[in-house]
Every structure is written in structure tokens, then in C-alpha cells.
């Protein structure tokens, strides 16, 4: 059913040292019954869009907060571009651009004033600052509203400004916490496009997300975190391959008749068949052989096939099998 193209990591160099490396990272909050992070070891390759997936309370935000320098780890160490985030905090912070989940901006200031303020706080001054402000306004498509107070902006505009403030100092690494949660599809698409552009320019991107399709569309590498532990991590392709599935998923142009489920179940090799509107799912021990027979059965209905996928699992299936939690919980 997945008809989106796999994200291409054009800047990824497997031989390059990881841009972020966490070793045995632990964090326990005062009064908490269990650790928010429990011996997290993580390698984020340089030049990729890295997605961090996990259910609510899994430890994603805690991990991102430690990477950003907002929280101190209870134990363990993190190196960003080879620098320790505790002992070389200043150097590390210059490399990072952080985009919080909620727009971290001053509503009483205009977009330009926000950008100028955060730019100066990043140590940018003079003409360079003006160049960067203009570039960020262009990137965020905020030129028309640059002198309006942000409190009058729509949610989508605030998210755009939130994003470009994180880019004001041209960071090498961009960290985003749920960048598209609760925004309209247009703004979501806008942010995805900008992230792809940044990746193409060589920016390493680390983002947490709840949205499986977003991760599949954007991320090259994935880490799944659950109950404070990294359950799995690796390239998206490798992850999907590792959970190779014996299922065949298809989507038809129109819903087939209910009797079609019986037709599918009678195909030799089919273990189970499920019909849900225009989509159906067939489980089998031999997907390649069964797929031929399934295609034949579809042809007999006279309803065109929209998509057919077999051999690999969806990210959601991977996630569910590893965490036993629905992703959008």
C-alpha cells in the first residue's frame, strides 16, 4: 500500500564518523519510579535525516533534550561531532539548531525581530545577520508578514518561523521535536520540503515523530525507542528488510464484493485473508508464488489495482512488532 518513494540519502557517507554518538546514556528524574532513559547507545550517521520513533513517554523528548543541552544525563556520555556535550557544551551548541515542538518565539515581536534577536544570541551581527534574516524569511516564505507581530500569525506561520529560527546560524545539525504535529497538510508539506532541501545542503537532521508515514517519507535512518531503551536502530531499508513479512497488501480502485475475501482464502498457499474497503491483506508462507495467484483473482473482479506490496514490512508493522504499542498512541 505504500506508494511513496523511499527517501534517498544523497549525503550519507557510511565511512564517516557518526555526527552524534551516545553511549550508555541514562537519565532518571527525581521521584520517578523508572529511568526515563536506560543505557541508551545510539549512533546517528552524518548527513542523514534520522527519525526517532516511540510511543508517548518512551523517552524521545528526554533524549532530544539531552542532545540539545537542556538536560544533563544522569550517566553516560554523548559526543556531537566528536565533542562531549557536557565538557564542550559551548562548542556543541554552536553546531546545533533546535526546533522545539511548540513554537518557541516571542509573540509580541515580529518575525524579523524574532530572527534578529535569536541571530544575535547566536553571535551573528552586522551585515551577516541581515543576510541570514533575509534568507530565513525567504526559506520560511514569511517575507509578506515579516513586520507583523507573531501573535497575529496562524499556527502554520508560527511553525515556519519556529523552524527558520533554528536555522538562523546555519547549523550543521538540526534537531526537531515533532515538527509537524497538529498542523495542516499544507504546512506539513512545506516543512517536509524544507527539511529535504536542508538535507540536500548537507545538514544532518534528527527528528522525533509520531507519524509513521512522515518517518517513512523523510527519514533514512530510524531508531525506535520504548520505555527508555533503544529497541532497534538502523537504515530504514534495513529495518524494513529485517522484519521481512509474509504478507501481501493491495489497494484496489473500488471496493470489491464481500465474496472476494472467500476467493482469496481459497488460493493455494494463502493462510489468512482480510478485506477492508478497497484494501486487502493476505498472509502466506510464499509471497512470490501467492502474489501471482492474487493478481489473477484481482483481474477477475474487473476492478483495477492501485498498489501492491509484498516482501517487506511497513514501518508500522516493524514498530508494532518491536514495541507492542500503536505508533499514534
Amino acid at each position, binding site marked *: 500500500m505504500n506508494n511513496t518513494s523511499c527517501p534517498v540519502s544523497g549525503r550519507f557517507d557510511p565511512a564517516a564518523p557518526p555526527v552524534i554518538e551516545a553511549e550508555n546514556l541514562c537519565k532518571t528524574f527525581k521521584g520517578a519510579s523508572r529511568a526515563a532513559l536506560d543505557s541508551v547507545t545510539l549512533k546517528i550517521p552524518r548527513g542523514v535525516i534520522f527519525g526517532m520513533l516511540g510511543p508517548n513517554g518512551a523517552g524521545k523528548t528526554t533524549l532530544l533534550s539531552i542532545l540539545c543541552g537542556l538536560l544533563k544525563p544522569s550517566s553516560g556520555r554523548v559526543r556531537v561531532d566528536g565533542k562531549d556535550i557536557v565538557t564542550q557544551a559551548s562548542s556543541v551548541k554552536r553546531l546545533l539548531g533546535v526546533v522545539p515542538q511548540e513554537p518557541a518565539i*516571542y509573540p509580541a515581536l515580529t518575525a524579523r525581530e524574532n530572527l534578529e534577536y535569536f541571530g*544575535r544570541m547566536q553571535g551573528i551581527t552586522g551585515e551577516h545577520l541581515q543576510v541570514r534574516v533575509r534568507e530565513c524569511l525567504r526559506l520560511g516564505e514569511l517575507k509578506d508578514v515579516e513586520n507583523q507581530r507573531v501573535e497575529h500569525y496562524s499556527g502554520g506561520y508560527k511553525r515556519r518561523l519556529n523552524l527558520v529560527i533554528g536555522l538562523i546560524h546555519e547549523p550543521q545539525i538540526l534537531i526537531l521535536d515533532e515538527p509537524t504535529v497538529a498542523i495542516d497538510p499544507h504546512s506539513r508539506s512545506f516543512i517536509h520540503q524544507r527539511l529535504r532541501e536542508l538535507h540536500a545542503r548537507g545538514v544532518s537532521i534528527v527528528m522525533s515523530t509520531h507519524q509513521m508515514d512522515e518517518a517513512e517519507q523523510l527519514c533514512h535512518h530510524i531508531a525506535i525507542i520504548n520505555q527508555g531503551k533503544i529497541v532497534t536502530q538502523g537504515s530504514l531499508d534495513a529495518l524494513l528488510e529485517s522484519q521481512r513479512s509474509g504478507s501481501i497488501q493491495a489497494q484496489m480502485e473500488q471496493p470489491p464484493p464481500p465474496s472476494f475475501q472467500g476467493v482469496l482464502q481459497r488460493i493455494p498457499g494463502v493462510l489468512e485473508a482480510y478485506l477492508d474497503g478497497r484494501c486487502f491483506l493476505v498472509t502466506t508462507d510464499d509471497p512470490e508464488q501467492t502474489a501471482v495467484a492474487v493478481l489473477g483473482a484481482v483481474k477477475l473482479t474487473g476492478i483495477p489495482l492501485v498498489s501492491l506490496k509484498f516482501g517487506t514490512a511497513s514501518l508500522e508493522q516493524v514498530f508494532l512488532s518491536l514495541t507492542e504499542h500503536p505508533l499514534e498512541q
Partner: protein
Amino acid sequence: MMDSLKKLATSVAKESRIILRDRQTMILFFVMPVLFVLILSLALRDAFGDRPGATFPMLVVDQDGGEVGKTVVSAFAANPHFRVERAGHPAPGQAALERAILDGRYRFVVIVPEGATEQAKRRVGEIAANVPPALLKDPSVQLRMLSDPTLRTDYRSMVSTALAVILHGEEMRLSGAQIEKNLRAMGYALELPTDLTRTRIFAEMRDEPLRSGRLNAIPSSVQQNAPAWTLLAMFFLTVPLSVSFIKEREQGSLSRLQTMSVPGWVVLGGKTTPYFVINQIQMVSILLVSVYVLPLLGGDRLDPGHAPLALALLGAAASLAAIGFGIAVAMYARTAEQAASFSSATVMIMAALGGILVPKAVMPPLMQQFATLSPLAWGLDGFLDVFVRGGGLMDVVPESLGLLAFSAACHTLAVLRYQNRL
């Protein structure tokens, strides 16, 4: 360091811009305290210290028309705190007199009964003639005093005592005249001095209010209200300061700054410096209004004293104390609403306790001891050192150190809380 100072200047400019765009807060900061000082200094003018005008209007109903009535009128008229009027003829009745008091036209009515002087003279004559008390024809002369029931009991008692003293003097005068008359009749030529004040055994008592030292001199209305409302305005800034801090925390902009190479003191300084400046402007504007505007409206002029450095030190110390308190509240409060309600309630309690709303000098001794718990009381004592007791820079050092220690304690609590959250 230069880089950090530039960032501090940028933060101060940003915060100032945000504050200046909030008109309601601007009114709260500047207009309200000045209005409070003007209104309360004028309204409470007669409730504090020296009063230039009469406080107690008094009507004397002199039905006698003799020496007793004249003595009473002249004695009270000589006191600047009384405005004495004589009732016309015919004398108003009891109901009209009561109405005059209840309507607030007079605080006191003194009634000298008809024939009082003659009756007094007859009685003195009989006493001088050694008539036994049981056989005296004329009873004691009874003057009456009606008073405003809303007036404090101690004021009524003091006026009653003053009237008794006046009548005692009249008694002495009449007795002397009678003795002189009797001696003359017996062939002795004795002339009593006409100016009795020069022959008094005890000199007249004079009040000697202290103008220096650390005694509880009672301030005038403006001496009390100007510093009191300056301090209250300064401490009330903890409300917008703590709310602004929490909002910034909730909006995530504080966290965003933490992800940058911005030292904590720059973030803190950028946030608090504009409030410090506002505090100083509040103090200067209130003092200027008290010195130059209040007299134009009929109020007392505030004498700012001769120690501008002492005022500057107090203003800075009080502002730092208020800012420290605001930051501590912001660190411990969970929401902006919680911070606003807690800080405003606490400041009002500190103000009530610290002699801001009710002068410490008129509090009972036990409450005066409790007042020393409030940092606003320390600040007020410092200002009163300068305005009332004529103190200088060294006189306000103890109060300023107290305020600075309070500020340091609040900042320490805030830092501990902040580190605990990391």
C-alpha cells in the same frame, strides 16, 4: 565577555520592546503608583503628623456672654488644631446642635450655660467666706461638651481634658480675684499680677518631636505615602516579572536560549534589567510628583532630604529585592496564574505587615515587632531615615543590606530550583 555583554544588551532591548508594547502593563507600572501617591497623600493629609490646617471644627454656644465663655473661646482659638466658631443668637437648641455634629459640620460643641460667670463668682465668694460645702447656695457650674461619635476616643478624651484645664485656670483666676477682693475689704492692699503666665510655677509644656536618630518619628502624609507606594509599586512588579518569566518558559523561548551559547546570567540580566530600570523610574517619578506636583494640588511638599545617594542606594536595593522575589516565584510556580496570584497576595501581606498600608509608627508594639519581618518595612524605614529623621547614606546602609540579603536569598532559592530541574 564582550560577546556576552552584547547579548545582554540585545536581551535588554528585546525585553524593553516587549514591555513597551504592553500598554496595560505600562499603566500599571507608572500611572497607578503616581495616582495612588497623589490621592492618598491628599486624602490622608490630616491623618498624619503635623497638619497645617485645623482638624477639629468646634462650636461654642456661649449662653453666658461673660468671662467663662470668652476664656473657653480664646483658649481653643489659640490652638491651631481647632477652628472655633461662636453660635449666634438666639442659641440653637439641643436638637440643632446634635444635627450639626451628626452632619459633620462640627466635631465638638461646647455649651457654656447662661449665667455661668456670675454663678462661678458667687460660688467662689461663698467658698472664700468659708461657707460649709453643704450650705453652699450655688452648685458647681456645669459646662457641656458634645462630640462626634466617630472620632477616636483618645481624641475626645484629650479635648475633654483640655477643656477641664481651661476651666481649672478660670477657677484659679476667679479665686485669685476673690482673695484679692477679700484682702482689700480687710484693709490689705494686694495686687495680683495680671499676666499669670509669667508667674507660673511650672513652665508651659512644649512638645519636642525628635528629627533625627532612630526613634519612631511620625511621618507626614506625603513622607509616609511617597516611599510606601514607591516600594509597593516596586514589589508589585514581581507580578508581571514572574508571569513574563513563566510565559517565556511555557512558550519555550527560554529553553531555546538554553540550547544556544548564551550564559545564564545574560538570560537573567536581559529579563530583569528593564524591570530594574522601571523601578528606578517609578521611584524618581513618585518623588518628583511628591516634591513638585502635590503642593500644586494643595498637599504637603515632600522634603527629599539631603542624601540623594542614600535614596539611590535604597531604590537599587529595594528593586533587587523585588526582582529576586519575582524570579524565585517564577521558579517555584507552575503556571502564570499561580505566580500572579501568589506574588500579588504575598506582596500585599508584606505591605500590610511592613507599614505600607498602615504606618508602623501607629501600630501597637507587638505589630511593630512583626513588621520587621517584611522587607518592605526595611525599605520604608530607610526612606523615613532620609525624609523624616534627616539621615544620610550611612543611616540607610543597614536597611539596604537587609534588602540585598533578601535579594541574594531569593536568587539562591531560584538557582537551586533551576538546577534541580536539569
